[in-house]
């Protein structure tokens, strides 16, 4: 996958498949949806990202954390419980599964993200 950011379309980030051109995810940095979001990485996530057990990676400095947007009932939703996490130091990437974030967020008509639990 290639993460593409177009300045005119910030804060959107497009995750484009390098092998299948028809596959392109639209995503947003998680903190544009929930400003105090913190990612909880499982042991499997850390292993896949090559992050040491005792390391405390920070979003922005060490990680990019993106929420995939998907259509649901004519609205857009983002599942912050399953963000795409990219290790900026080695560009390894996983889709994390964070059970401590039970809510989806739905984009309201005024452009605000509303939790849908």
């Amino acid at each position, binding site marked *: *996958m290639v*993460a593409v950011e177009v300045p005119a379309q910030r804060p*959107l980030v497009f995750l484009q498949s390098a092998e299948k051109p028809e596959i*392109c995810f639209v995503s947003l940095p998680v903190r544009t949806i929930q400003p105090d979001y913190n990612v909880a990485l499982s042991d499997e996530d850390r292993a896949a990202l090559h992050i040491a057990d005792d390391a405390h990676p920070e979003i922005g400095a060490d990680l990019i954390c993106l929420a995939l*947007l998907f*259509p649901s009932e004519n609205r857009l939703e983002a599942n912050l419980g399953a963000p*795409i996490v990219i290790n900026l130091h080695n*560009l390894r990437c996983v889709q994390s599964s964070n059970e401590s974030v039970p809510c989806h967020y739905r*984009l309201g008509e*005024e452009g605000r993200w509303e939790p849908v639990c």
Partner: protein
Amino acid sequence: MLVVRRRAGEAIVLSGEIEIEVIEISRTRVKLGVRAPRHVTVLRRESAVLAQQNQSAASLLMQHPETVGDLLRLLGSVTANSSQTSQVGADM
């Protein structure tokens, strides 16, 4: 929903070919073992939901190309003058 009480080491069988065994019971979790033919997909429920969401997400632009414009308008993004595009390759 059929409810069955089982102890560690006991199992249930579905359709005569899928066996689900209770391997271990702790205070907050149950460890299950599943024996099933190769053609049977076994997923955690949340993984199945996530797979469905990912499929929808992957086809968002193909099926709803107007999404980007709508999104930017809703999010109130300011159109930048620059046309430079940045890319990061990620090993997924």
